[in-house]
Each structure stands twice: as C-alpha cells, then as structure tokens.
C-alpha cells in the first residue's frame, strides 16, 4: 500500500501512509489509540475506500476492492473482538471460513446430490484440521457463546486460517488473553509464517517486538517510523509518541503513590 489517504468528512484519518508486507514476514502495525491502525486495516480489506492512494497485491493494483473478494485473493482477516456466528457450532463457524474452497453449487445442494455431500465432507475435514492445529478440536460441536473468550479467539483464528490465505490480517489478536496465552499466540504466529505473511495490529508491545520482522508505527494518521523492532525501539519519535506515554503514565502513577503516601503519613 502506498500513499494511502483517508478522510472521514473533514477529518484526516490517514495521511500518506505506505506499508509493504514482504512475503513470509510478520509485519507489525502499532501506534497509540486513534492513530488509524484499524482504519488502515479496513482500507486493506475494502471496508473503507481510501480517498487517494494505491493498494497493490501481487503486482496487481486493487481498485474498488470489496471485502467479499478478499479470500479469493488469498487474504484473510480476523476481527477485533471475535465476530463468531452465534447460532452455529464451532465447526460450522470454521467451515464458513473455508467458503472459497467449496465447489458444489446451488443445484447440487437443492437436490442433495452426492457431490454436495462429498464437498461438505471435504470442508468438514479441512475445518477439523484447522481446529486441531489450534488445539480447539474438542470444542467442535459447541456453540461459541458457551466458550471462554480465549477459545473463541482461537476459533476465530481457525476460521481465518482455514481459508489458507497468503496474507493473514490479525486485528488485535491478543486482546483479552493472559500472559501465557499471548505467548502461545506468538509462537503460533511464528509457526504459520512459513505458509503466509502476517500483518498484525496489536497493543501489547512485548508480543509485537517478539514476533514481528518489521514494524510500522502510526501516530495521528501519520507514519512516524518503520523498520525492524530494534530500529523502531531506538527511534526517538516513537519513544515520544508512543512509549513516551507509558513513561508519563508511570511518572503519574509514581506521583500519585507519592501524594497518596503523603496523605497516609499525614
């Protein structure tokens, strides 16, 4: 993606942002709240149309990209939160993710031709395989609403993986996960990189620093830094815009504790 601009009315959500995900790499997209990370993601998915700029995928420019075309282009995305289908079992949820691999059409479904059954069986096996890979196969018959949040997140990930994309877009995959689960997630992301590239939006800095090959930092819709995790960490602009906040919070907290302690003594 090069020179992406997005304006919502008079508000410039993204100004001249460029980002390239190299094959087989994990690319992190970070920035403080409201920096435009999700907007950029939505542009990449066709949910938001950029005011100007180009999106190029495999040397082909994507104009008038629609979300439903994504999987056939080899791009899959998870949603912030989980976005599972509440009225369907976990297995069915993942089978929907395999939509683009389905071959049997309307007529064979209408007449319940054996071809339709065979196709379903294939999708079911694919879905089970994706669930097994993420260690969620024992939940296949359950409904998502009855499952713990981390399991739901895994199911959502399985739904994206089952499409066998070449580019996986992960929108805050670690939100709501514990430290251990986040660690597992990191290993999982590294393990899929052999098969696909990953673009990751995430708040948890340690996860981002651990798994990403390259990182782009946004602040207020502008790209302020890009590079390897080490380069980004060393960049003063990033420290100011992003990590600087964290220091401030700590300082504030220290101050608070101090005054609190003072009051206590008094």
């Amino acid at each position, binding site marked *: 993606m090069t020179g992406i601009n997005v304006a919502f009315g008079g508000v410039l959500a993204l100004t001249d942002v460029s980002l390239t995900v190299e094959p087989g790499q994990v690319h992190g997209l970070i920035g403080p709240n409201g920096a435009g990370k999700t907007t950029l993601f939505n542009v990449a998915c066709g949910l938001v149309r950029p005011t100007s700029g180009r999106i190029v995928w495999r040397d082909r420019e994507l104009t008038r990209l629609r979300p439903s075309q994504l999987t056939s282009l080899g791009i899959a995305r998870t949603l912030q*939160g989980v976005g599972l289908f509440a009225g369907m079992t976990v297995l069915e949820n993942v089978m929907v993710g395999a939509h683009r691999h389905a071959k049997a059409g309307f007529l064979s479904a209408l007449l319940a031709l054996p071809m339709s*059954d065979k*196709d379903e069986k294939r*999708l079911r096996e694919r879905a089970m395989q994706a669930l097994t890979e993420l260690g969620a196969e024992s939940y296949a*018959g359950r409904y998502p*609403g009855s499952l713990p949040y981390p399991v739901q997140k895994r199911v959502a990930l399985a739904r994206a993986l089952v499409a066998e994309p070449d580019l996986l877009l992960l929108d805050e995959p670690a939100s709501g996960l514990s430290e251990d689960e986040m660690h597992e997630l990191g290993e999982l992301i590294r393990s899929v990189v052999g098969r696909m590239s990953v673009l990751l939006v995430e708040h948890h800095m340690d996860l981002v620093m651990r798994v990403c090959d390259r990182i782009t930092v946004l602040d207020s819709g502008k790209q302020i830094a890009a590079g390897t995790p080490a380069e980004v960490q060393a960049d003063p602009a990033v420290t100011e815009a992003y990590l600087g906040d964290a220091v401030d919070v700590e300082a504030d907290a220290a101050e608070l504790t101090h005054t609190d302690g003072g009051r206590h003594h008094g």
Partner: protein
Amino acid sequence: MSDLQNSPSTAGQVTDEAPVAATAAANAPSAAATTGRTLLPQSTLLRHLVLLLLGAVAAVVILEITDPFTNSQLATLSFYAIAAGGLTVLTGMNGQISLGHGALMAVGAYTTALLLQEPDGALPLPLILLISVVMATVVGALVGVAAARLHGPYLAGATLALAVGLPGLAIYFHDFLGGEQGLRVRAPRAPESFESFIGLVSGANATSTKWLAYVGAICLLITYFLLANLVRSRIGRTWRAIRDQDVAAELAGINLGAWRVLAFVVSAAAAGLAGSVLALVVRLAAPSGFTLVLSLSLLTAIVIGGLGSLLGALLGSALLVFLPPWVTDRGIDFGLNNTEAAQLAPFVYGVVLIVAMIFAPGGFVGTVRLRWMTQKAKRAAAARAAAGSSGG
C-alpha cells in the same frame, strides 16, 4: 424484529447463552461434529428421501382416514405450510423479514388462474404449477435485489408496500385480472390413475376435493424436501452466517447481496407455488384473498412454530388452520351464538401468540431444541464431573 438483524454495536459481542433464542429453531447444524448413533443413513439425499417417503405415507393415511371437510382443511394447510416454509428459510435462516409474501402468493395464484382460463386444452397441471413458480420467482428476484440493501424495519416497510400495492394491480387491470371480483379458477379434473389409486388404497370416492388435497400434499412434500436439502447444505450455513455476523461473513468471502437475493428468490418460489395451490383449492384468485393479513399470518405461523425450522413452519400453519374452527366449536359448546363464537377465534389466536412470545420465544421447535441442548450439556457436565471424581 430488531433482533433478526445484528446491529453493528452488538456484533462480535460475547453472549453467555448458547445460540440466539429467537432463531434457535433455525440452528440445526449443517455439519455434525461427531457422528452420533442414528438410524438414518449418512447421505443427505437418502436421509431426506426416507423422510419424504415417510411423509408421503403419512399424508395418504391422514387424507384417507379423515372426512371430506378435513380433507379440504388439509389442502388449506398445505398451501399455508408451503408459503411458511419458504418464509422461514428467509426470515429464520437469513434474517430478512418479509411482509410481502402474500403478494408473492398472489402472483402464483393469478398465474395459475389465467393459465386455467382456457376452457379446453389447458396446459398439464404440473406445468401450470411450474410456470406459477417461475413467475413468482421473477417478481421475488426483483424485490430481492431491492431487499438485499435494506435492513430490519426498512425491509419490513418495503415488503409491506408490496403486500399492499400488488393486489391493487388486479383492480387496476380489471378486464384482464377480474378486478375486485377476482378470477374464478376452473379446478382441473383428476386423472384416472388417481381414481384407481384411491380405489386401491381405501375404496373411497375420488372426489375433486380429495384430488386437490393430494395435489397440495404432493407440492408440500416436494417443497419441503428441496428446502430441507438447502437448509442442511452449505447454502443454509452461508445464509445463517450472514444472519449472525454480516461483516465476518463478508470477510470469509461471502457476497452478502447475492446470497440475500438468493434467499429471497428461493422463498418467493415457495410462495408462488403456495399461491398456485391456493388458487386451485379456493378456486378463486381475488385481491381479498391476498391482504396484508395473509402475510402477517404466515409470519406468526413461523414464529409460533419456531423461526427457521421447516417442522415449525408446518406446525405453525397447522395451528393457523385448525385452531380457529376448534375454538369456534368450543365457543358454541359453551353456549355462545355463532357470531360470538367466530369472534372468539382471533382473540384466542392472539393470546396464544403472546403466550408463545413470553414463554417460548424460540417458538415450538426452538424451545424444544434449546431444552434438549441444555439437557445434553448437563449430561456432558455430569459425565465430566463423574470422570473427574473417579480419576481423583
């Protein structure tokens, strides 16, 4: 109505209830995670053919042991159930609401009536039914294209306009469509093979009423066979995905608009067939037969039966057909005069609807299914607990 469509704010939110209660009846999984013990064959086609055969046997038995009046009631049931089956697929599985199915039935009914106008040399009956289905499908496709862009109350409003407006066409083109009086439908004569079949089964009189009841039953069975195939296939799963979470469905590569139109078209085809059967059974296609009340009755039938379930649509239609006469009879038993007794029926129907909404929002089938799933979960939990205690 609002919970038929997930608003973006609730999208992806974690709920602790298993499936959404209102559409619980629709959620027969298209894929069994583990193949449980079952007497039915694995193949969808064989399984549904077995059910079709059982349904056919049941239909013959029921039609032969009941009197002619019940036969004609059953014919009425068949066209209500065909239309309700199509509507439940649209509303329960795909989350689109339609108040215009009565109008789509009118398209089917008028087509049938016009095709049967020729005094002699009319087309064979199956062909007439098929043409009626095609006509309704075409109208349904046009409405569906508009409907695919609309949500919830807006869709209800647009289809409401169809329900109110379309029968008006019959009055406007009164020379061609018979105006307020409607078109009388010449009932097609039963073939001789039918008479010999009835003679063989029960030896009863093969009356025209009986023939029409059989036509209705055959149409009903074929429609439900085809709809059940769709519901259990990838098509049904895709519809439910769109209903539950449209953004996630779209990201999974589903073209929302095209699939919504498909659901509407399938539903309209069923409505067209229902209208065609209605014309044959009632022997009249008139605007007064396709008022808004018809569309609303269909909607209440599928809600009481259980949104998204074909069995529910059948049960809801049965209630629609058999409850009012039953209540009227009870009213007369209790010493009301005819007028008072007749007024009792809509009242009782309303009460049943309200009670169903309060105590069984999933409808009949949905409530039973939720109960059953809770039981299963409890048993599973108990089994786990037992395993845990024996292990420790």
